[in-house]
């Protein structure tokens, strides 16, 4: 890959492009109607007084703009979490590379930057979720030392959705 790709921290001005990529991924999964937030919400939540997430973007130099005018090839969205047993961790919520840029090691570069950010902040672990039918992702992560805690230790993701929360408030 001859073109110099840079992985950098997202700026507020990137939110329009990041929102586009979030929608692209939802579209690909045929779940476009599940995207409820807007560019404005993404800006407030990531660049306000109290950021709820951190984001890295993969960017080509300006001379390699795509027809849609975006220089971004992908993004990684993460946040810091806390385990009462192991202390600070990083949770990688989303990692996405635009289809035409896949297969060039960009995903690896993004995850490497997230790992660096995790180590800089004294984190013990990087955690994330993968769907059980996503074999290529599972192989990608296992090759980098990842361990499946659902299989190994029986941990299941649970949630109370918005309706259930409101029910509990009413109780």
């Amino acid at each position: 890959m001859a073109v110099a790709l840079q992985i950098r921290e997202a700026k507020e001005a990137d939110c329009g492009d990041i929102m586009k990529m979030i929608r692209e991924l939802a579209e690909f999964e045929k779940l476009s109607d599940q995207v409820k937030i807007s560019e404005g919400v993404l800006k407030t939540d990531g660049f306000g007084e109290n950021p709820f997430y951190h984001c890295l973007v993969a960017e080509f130099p300006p001379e390699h703009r795509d027809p849609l005018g975006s220089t971004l090839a992908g993004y990684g969205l993460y946040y810091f979490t806390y385990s009462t047993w192991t202390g600070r961790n990083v949770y990688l919520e989303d990692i996405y590379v635009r289809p035409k840029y896949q297969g060039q090691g960009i995903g690896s570069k993004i995850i490497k930057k997230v790992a660096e950010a995790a180590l800089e902040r004294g984190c013990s672990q990087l955690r994330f979720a993968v769907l059980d039918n996503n074999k290529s992702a599972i192989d990608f992560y296992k090759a980098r030392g990842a361990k499946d805690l659902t299989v190994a230790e029986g941990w299941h993701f649970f949630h109370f959705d918005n309706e259930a929360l409101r029910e509990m408030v009413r109780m």
Partner: protein
Amino acid sequence: MANFVIRSATPSDCSDILRLIKELAKYEEMEEQVVLTEKGYSIVGFAMYYFTYDPWIGKLLYLEDFFVMNEFRGFGIGSEILKNLSQLAVKCRCSSMHFLVAEWNEPSIQFYKRRGASDLSSEEGWRLFKIDKEYLVKMAAEE
């Protein structure tokens, strides 16, 4: 059962929180609880939470730890803690509350399901993965 209050923790609560964290760890390793009756307890349960983010729906409340001492269960303390957390989630405009449960932990699974929780791992196939520090160091060192 005497009246109880649910309140935010303060720095002086840390030794009690640590005591409960250790008790929770024991519970999750399935060891028998030894009930200490000589000491009186005023702090008998805790919940540890923080905010996380879903790029499709925004802010979430994440429940990291949730524990009520064995001898104080069955009095509605857990329910009250969850209700408190739900109010906080709604106030902070969180779409939902997420947490992990071990698949062998039947009492907890039932407790949560009775209150409307769903198991996303079973229903949608989500698996939790981790990468330990030694592998993060390897990745950061790679060219």
